[in-house]
């Protein structure tokens, strides 16, 4: 697959902060998430791709064309900034049709495209509303529709879920997945939330202090990071898998090597599973419990956290569990101990 967006050796500095030798490539139709803490330079990198400034060194290539020195309007890359920044002097429809209007598209054609997007994103009822009267989730969907209306070569989303509540977050993620699937547009999405990143990305790039330190698929990255202290993914159990069956909302998920995990979800296809370390039970015996999931493994690392102890357990998938200090000593656990881990189907977040 050809490169949708390629950033090659990009460097740029602002006083004491600099983006240093950034290299990344997003295949056409790919969903790339740039993950990093506040102040790491992820938004600056996104703005370089959008055309807010020309990088001092390196280049940005979109669909084979070097756009490094082109103005934003010539790049055909839609930018959806944090907090959405809708045009408040226009209705929702006019916001969506803005780019088409700027390009001189006929009103009939504009209306047709905006109607399709309004329907796709479930915001038809907001057509004539002012952006001032919209909720965070609604604003996000309008912002997305506005970005997609011009049929860009790529869409840049800067913290698209930062201003919405957790429930809306999940629904917006579903919209993003659907829109990406239906339009096939290349997406670069910036976030500081690793679960958000893992739940939607094809590939994730981790950026710290202006440097792209890791790039990989979510599951790859979580595996690597689990073994690395102070990682962004530390303590989170992220496992990729495929839903192979579903009965009464209890899904059977293949996580590879013939291993299965059960989780409560209606999702199908490829999923990322998230299990909190404190929701994992550890036992030396494989007793029958009500928990739907049981895996056998070996403790490879023990970290004293004071009242609790963190255990790294390798059971095909590396997992992290947190147990109380008292349980740890009563069960005589240690590095090398063979254990069983249990967790309920309800404890598995399906992302």
């Amino acid at each position, binding site marked *: 697959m050809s490169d949708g967006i390629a950033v090659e050796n990009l460097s740029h500095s602002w006083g004491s902060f600099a983006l240093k030798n950034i290299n990344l490539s997003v295949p056409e139709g790919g969903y790339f998430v740039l993950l990093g803490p506040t102040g790491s330079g992820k938004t600056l990198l996104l703005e370089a791709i*959008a055309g807010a400034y020309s990088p001092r060194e390196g280049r940005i290539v979109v669909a084979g064309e070097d756009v490094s020195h082109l103005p934003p309007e010539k790049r055909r890359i839609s930018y959806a900034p944090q907090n959405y920044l809708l*045009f408040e002097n*226009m209705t929702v429809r006019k916001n969506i049709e803005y*780019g088409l209007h700027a390009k001189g598209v006929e009103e009939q054609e504009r209306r047709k495209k905006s109607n399709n997007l309004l329907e796709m994103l479930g915001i038809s009822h907001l057509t004539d509303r002012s952006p001032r009267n919209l909720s965070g989730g609604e604003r996000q969907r309008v912002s997305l529709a506005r970005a997609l209306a011009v049929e860009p070569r790529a869409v840049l989303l800067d913290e698209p879920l930062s201003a919405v509540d957790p429930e809306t977050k999940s629904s917006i993620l579903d919209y993003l997945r659907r829109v990406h699937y239906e339009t096939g547009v290349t997406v670069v999405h910036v976030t500081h939330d690793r679960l958000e990143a893992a739940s939607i990305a094809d590939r994730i790039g981790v950026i710290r202090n202006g440097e792209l330190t890791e790039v990989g698929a979510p599951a790859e990255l979580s595996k690597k990071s689990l073994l690395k202290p102070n990682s962004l993914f530390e303590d989170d159990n992220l496992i990729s898998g495929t839903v192979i069956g579903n009965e009464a909302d209890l899904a059977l998920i293949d996580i590879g090597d013939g291993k299965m995990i059960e989780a409560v979800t209606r999702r199908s296809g490829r999923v990322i599973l998230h299990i909190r370390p404190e929701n994992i039970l550890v036992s030396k015996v494989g007793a029958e419990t009500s928990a739907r999931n049981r895996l056998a493994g070996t403790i490879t690392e023990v970290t004293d956290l004071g009242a609790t102890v963190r255990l790294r357990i390798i059971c095909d998938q590396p997992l992290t569990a947190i147990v109380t200090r008292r349980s740890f000593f009563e069960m005589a656990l240690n590095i090398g101990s063979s254990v069983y881990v249990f967790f309920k189907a309800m404890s598995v977040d399906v992302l």
Partner: protein
Amino acid sequence: MRGFASISRFSPQIRLRSLCAKRLTVLCLGIPRSKSHLQHSFSGLILAISNAQALSAIGLTIYTSGLTAAVAVFLGVPLGYLLGKYNFRGRTLIDSIIEIPLMIPHTVAGIALITVFGSAELIGSLFNNYGIRMTNDVIGIVITLVFVSATYTVKQVEEAIKSMDTRLELVSRSLGASSTFTFFKVTLPSIWRSVVTGAILTWARASSEVGALFIMAYYPAVASILIWNLYAGYGLRPSISNGQVLSPGAINVAALMIFINIAIFILFKVVQRRRVI
């Protein structure tokens, strides 16, 4: 600059209110305190309205201060935009030059202007060759008023651009809009309240200018100069001799001017409060 800093310590709204408060104070002085005083005040206003000289001066004031506000918007919006958005070499110098009229006495501003636009001076003589008088003419009045009052519009726009989220323009341009399209469809609608506030401040300042006009454009007399002339020649009250009105009274012309200015001011505020959608 220190001079402007002391003025700009206050928000534009406070400065605007202060300007209006001064006008209202003058108006209050003319508020009738008894029935006979009311009759006096009313007949005084009628006297001013029916005086051709007073009406002509007030008309000229409205025309020239309105034109000044329009010129200030025309020049001040692009200038304020440049100063607010870009950090270029010489920016501080331009900013300082724009603020100078607020720091110097207006008679000094008048002297400065006449040394450039006087009929025997550099620019003035150039225009004089084509029969265009830059002093003691409407052109002279507008040049003077723009010099002493356009700063308010430039500074308002500059501050509005500085406080505007520039990513809004990036969004527009990333959607394929040119920088000109973006300016008129996104930037200007975002700062238009500041543009109107700047225009009101400029207009209000221009309509009350006296000092610089005394030197640069004494004729034709705008209202502020006529009021001074009437006061200096005949005192505060009307002067009538053998049935002929020598002076409609400085106080009556001043009161009429205040009513008109307040009416225009209210009109501006109504326009400013209108929502776009």
